[in-house]
């Protein structure tokens, strides 16, 4: 993990705004995941690191609607995108400490997006249980002991 001083320095240099601009590129409509966008989302999450100053910088740079948009595209299906998972965890960190972010999320339709995401995971869990093999007999799962 990066040190607090490094995160602060990177934030001052404008890395946060640059990453938000990059992820919010209008060319990405709908949001397209690539190795670079995954890395950018991971970098945003790493920069957050519990720093309120960085979270404020993200908010000012417009990260809240961006992160929500990164989630919205995957609401109907389980979150397969790594960048979307970064977006979810980052939004969670931002919302926890900021009433302004929470208000923004509600106004932007975040309740619907998150509810859809949660329900999609619930459906996936049900499907997973139906697919689950009989674990009571290890021989059925592991052919080595047969």
């Amino acid at each position, binding site marked *: 993990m990066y040190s607090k001083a490094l995160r602060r320095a990177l934030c001052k240099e404008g890395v946060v705004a640059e990453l938000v601009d990059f992820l919010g590129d209008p060319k990405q409509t709908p949001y397209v995941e*690539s190795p670079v966008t995954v890395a950018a989302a991971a970098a945003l999450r790493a920069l957050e690191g519990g720093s309120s100053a960085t979270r404020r910088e993200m908010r000012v740079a417009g990260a809240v609607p961006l992160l929500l948009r990164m989630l919205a595209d995957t609401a109907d299906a*389980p979150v397969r995108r790594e960048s979307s998972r970064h977006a979810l965890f980052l939004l969670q960190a931002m919302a926890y400490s900021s009433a302004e972010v929470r208000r923004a999320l509600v106004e932007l339709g975040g309740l619907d997006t998150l509810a859809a995401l949660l329900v999609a995971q619930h459906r996936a869990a049900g499907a997973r249980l139906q697919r689950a093999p009989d674990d009571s007999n290890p021989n059925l799962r592991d052919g080595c002991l047969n």
Partner: protein
Amino acid sequence: MTLTPTLETGVSTDETARSRRHTAYLVFDTVPHPLGKMQPPVSDLSEVPLKASSPPGTDDYRPSVAAAAAELLHSLASDGATTQKAVAAAPGVIEALVYLADQGGSDRRQSAQQRHQGAARDAARVEMQMEMEMGPPGVEDESDALDRDEDYGRAALAGSVALLSLSAGSPSTEVRSMLSLNSCVCLNPSLRTTVAVWQVRIRDAGGAPRVFSVKGAIPVRGASSLRSGSPSKAGRRRSSADDANLHPATR
């Protein structure tokens, strides 16, 4: 400044902490000047295929994602009754939270059981003197299994607390009526962090009293309101009759 194709080799869709760190390092290693313009545009890289994390259909459910969504919804709902009711009224949310709270705990136990079975199989392989350098497909690393157990535990707690909050914050039958008779929140007794015991009483659709109890700690705002959110005076004092309705895991 360009983002070189070496990113492809370092970026993984695997969700382990190790890969997350690796990914983050790569970003900064390839951005020598923070103000440099990122080139080429994303459209040029969108064709680059991501490394498959697992076969299709095998990792649809991610307890960490479900837990984060539940915690975030709970966080938003804790700001106001209107929002709270909106969360509770969203189709399928209550059922999903019940699953997290109840079935999620079962999943965690099942995961631990599978881990133990895996260890037993490993021991059997040694006895049979099988020359295997790596485990067969499907046998996961011990640390990954522990991470998954943590995710299940967190999901179970997130679902429980969100359910309790939604129930306690809405003394009317509006939310409570959404809880079915079978929606018993199962307390996972092996949670490591224990700082508080939250309990809420509700009455199900048939009018029978139910007692939900959760102990544990997650970053939940509005915990004080949750503790004082008993719908009635009777809810603050536990009687022997109510004890009979406690879930076995919470007695």
